[in-house]
């Protein structure tokens, strides 16, 4: 079984500053990794995903994440944030070895608060 830990429940940052949202996972098998963003009272939107290949993954809205297998981490970064990036961010993992149905396991989320 997989699990995901997002240690920071809330990250305050000033506009145009860089930000890193941390995600660590636990799994005995190979994994797929995802970052989702949720704006208030809305569903989740996929930011980026790691399936295989390059460990640096680029996503939408200028976000990127790096898969580090030895540290079992998948931290999300953005070099310069905007007010509009204020949202909740969820890291998720699934079993890369499964075929057909795959269960996504989510972390508890990190609220990014961008202030002027």
């Amino acid at each position, binding site marked *: 079984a997989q699990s995901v830990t997002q240690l920071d*429940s809330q990250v305050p940052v000033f506009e145009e500053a860089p930000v890193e949202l941390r995600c660590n996972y636990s799994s005995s098998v190979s994994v*797929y990794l*995802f970052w*989702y963003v949720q704006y208030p*009272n*809305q*569903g*989740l*939107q*996929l930011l980026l*995903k790691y*399936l295989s290949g390059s460990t640096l993954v680029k996503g939408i809205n200028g976000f990127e994440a790096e898969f580090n297998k030895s540290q079992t981490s998948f931290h999300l970064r953005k070099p310069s944030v905007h007010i509009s990036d204020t949202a909740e961010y*969820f890291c998720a993992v*699934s*079993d890369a070895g*499964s*075929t*057909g*149905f*795959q*269960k*996504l396991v*989510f*972390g*508890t*989320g990190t609220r990014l608060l961008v202030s002027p």
Partner: protein
Amino acid sequence: SQTIHQWPATLVQPVGSPLSLECTVEGTSNPNLYWYRQAAGRGLQLLFYSVGIGQISSEVPQNLSASRPQDRQFILSSKKLLLSDSGFYLCAWSPLQGKAEAFFGQGTRLTVV
């Protein structure tokens, strides 16, 4: 392109009343379907998933049930709501043989009073 519809967006129900939340997917066939619940500070909890019509798997024992009467329709129900059923409910789908990427509906905010 595929779209997912979930309704209603908000719902206030008294304790002991029944519940029915509906989700439909368009533009794809044989999707995997999911119901998640989101409680404050607890992330997303998978409640039910379905890999086909009439096939429902429950992840967490609770006061809720799910049904899939049609290929692209997923319904979350309760006969008698509890206060603890309050939360944000999200429906999602993924391709039958996909890479586990899930696509989410806009969610339903349920408040049980």
